[in-house]
């Protein structure tokens, strides 16, 4: 993992890779993130940078790889997945977050997005299935409950070795 991290740094900074920060643009060139529609959110969530530029240090990089590996428990994965899906960072998944999530999934571009009526129907269905306390948003425990019943979550939520 260290080797991969140091490959992302420009040549002159490679010696002190442990303390360097890799800018977001280089992180997004990783093969695992290149095709991922949540790439920006992933960088934002795992980055501990103070200036908000979403750059990642080696520790952040390790965090990201460990969460997406086989040995992470489903609790950890679902916790981070919740943070990734929470587009406005308010601690709950409300309708706008869900709408942005679905748009990310179906792809960029006008013709690949669902129509307004379909989006409404879909969001209604999702909230009906997962919103236990019927407050119109999904909080962390509801999310973890729903994801624990989901058979594909563990299978899909990992990077290839």
């Amino acid at each position: 993992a260290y080797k991969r991290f140091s490959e992302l740094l420009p040549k002159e900074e490679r010696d002190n890779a442990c303390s360097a920060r890799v800018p977001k643009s280089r992180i997004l060139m990783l093969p695992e993130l290149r095709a991922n529609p949540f790439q920006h959110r992933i960088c934002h969530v795992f980055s501990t940078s103070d200036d908000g530029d979403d750059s990642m240090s080696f520790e952040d990089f390790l965090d990201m790889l460990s969460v997406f590996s086989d040995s992470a428990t489903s609790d950890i994965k679902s916790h981070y997945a919740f943070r990734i899906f929470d587009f406005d960072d308010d601690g709950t998944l409300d309708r706008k977050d869900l709408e942005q999530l679905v748009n990310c999934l179906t792809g960029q571009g006008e013709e690949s997005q669902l129509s307004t009526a379909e989006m409404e129907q879909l969001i209604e269905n999702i909230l009906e299935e997962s919103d236990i306390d019927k407050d119109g948003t999904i909080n962390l425990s509801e999310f973890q409950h729903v994801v624990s019943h989901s058979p594909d979550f563990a299978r899909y939520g990992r990077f290839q070795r």
Partner: protein
Amino acid sequence: RDYQQADIKSLPGWKQRKRASSKSLKKFFNDVKELSSYLELWRHDIHSIEGKFGTGIQSYFSFLRFLVVLNFIIFLLMFSFVTLPSIISRYGVFNSSFAKISPKNIEPHCTVYNPNANKGLVYFYTYLKDLLSGTGFLEVTSLFYGYYTIDDAWVSILKYNLPLAYLLATFAYLALSLLWIIKRSVEGFKQNLVHDEDQFQSYCNKVFAGWDFCITDPNAARLKHRSLQYELKTDLEEERMKQKIADRTMKEKLRIYSLRIFINIIVIAVLSGCFYSIYRATVFSQENSNVSIRDDIRTDSSNLLVQYLPSIVITLANVIAPQIFSFLIRFEDYSPAFEIRLTLMRCVFVRLANIGVLLFSLWSQISYCATVECKACGYNYELYPCWESQVGQEMYKLMIFDFIIIIAVTLFWDFPRKLLVTHCSCKLVQWCGLQEFGISDNVLEIIYGQTICWIGTFFSPLLPAIATIKYFIIFYIKKISLIHTRKPAARPIRASSSNFFFLVVLLIGLVLAFIPLGISIAQIPSSKACGPFRNFNTSWAVVPATVLEFPAGLQQVLYGIASEAFAVPFFMVICLVMVYFIALAGAHKRVVEQLREQLVMVRFDPLSFL
């Protein structure tokens, strides 16, 4: 991580050491697991397929790998317990010998068997023909049942009861296959049960767990986006469809039901047509081959086409019938998911029932008895002095033909089509486009081959080796065909439910294989001219004969277990246990519902719980 480190520092010294040692032990186990995963067959290939094409297609290749390993183990089983002792005792290795007990109480005309083993100079064409149809020189090798005409093998002073070993090895490989498949499907079943029970959670599953993080290729990502969009749209449409169905009027319902009954009648007619043609083809093939008996020498004087006629008809039926079914089901107006499942079930039925009809027609030929002498033997001794070898030959031909067809389709259909699509820009060709990798079709193909292998192994003990090699080569053929000539399906099957579906159909194939084997072993008289069961009425008879040699006490125990006095209470106890578990499951479901309601109430009125 910071919390973990702070936690560690707060522990006393000896606990720290214990934790450090358990961590290093964990790391050691991880290393061992990683090393042993390198030994896994095709690990890298399947990972790369997963990355490029998603987990749905990857599950097909994992399934293929599972079959390769299963067939190899079955081959090892049969080889070490049946073939190896026969070969050792025939060639006298390790001071061994074999004993052929001359049959008592059996008409002499039943025991005449002179396979034409092509002694002397033969044309190369005859050699090739024999290789493809299992006759001639292949018939007397250890490939077929007829080779094992040994009653006991002696190694120094140890006696090896070959007939019993043959039968027990057959039961062993069937039981092994059954247990292994059940073990693999239990996990999928648990997931499927949860998935089906919480049918109302399927949207969350698709949205929150929909993106496959293994995808690294931008093309694959684009396809995944499209497939997710398609899946969501289809689900929403299905929901609207359900609403529409609920709103149907009486008149419409009557019209639809009568249409469905009519179409089902057509489906049954198509199936009967297939079965009848297979029956006629088998009868024709058997009548026009192996028949001339001149001067007490059987000569196989048929050409390859007649020999392979049943296989050709079965393959044609397997190709045409699914097309007809998918055309017909459009008129039945079911919801999309049910449509797919029903078509799949019909295709499975066609494929597996075709094998059954073939075997049935073979048996009707074998047990057709007109003369008194024939009735004395129990089977048609003139045409089939060693009928197990004949059945083995049919299974061998089916397997070889299946293999040839798969190679031929890839070479002469997939690659030319790809060349045509890339180089020719006329509208019709572009509209046809590249073919998708139809997962269910391919899976049904290999399950059909595996069912043949299971049935055929009793009659041809080295057949699993051929099956192993066949699937090994098919893996590479399919992989190359996938990478170079296919576009991934727009409507992918989800990996979690597809694994379970493959194993269920495989299990159906295995259970279906039990039936012909059971009938051959227990009902049809074994041939008296060849094979290890010459001295017994049927193949099964060797087991009671062996039991009679046991000490009296053990015999009593065995009779007790097999009697009604034991079986009926045992069955009732099992029923009670099942009823208990079903009741427990129902109770748990009710508890979950109650807790759910309570959660909602807490939200609105927390004081009510104080």
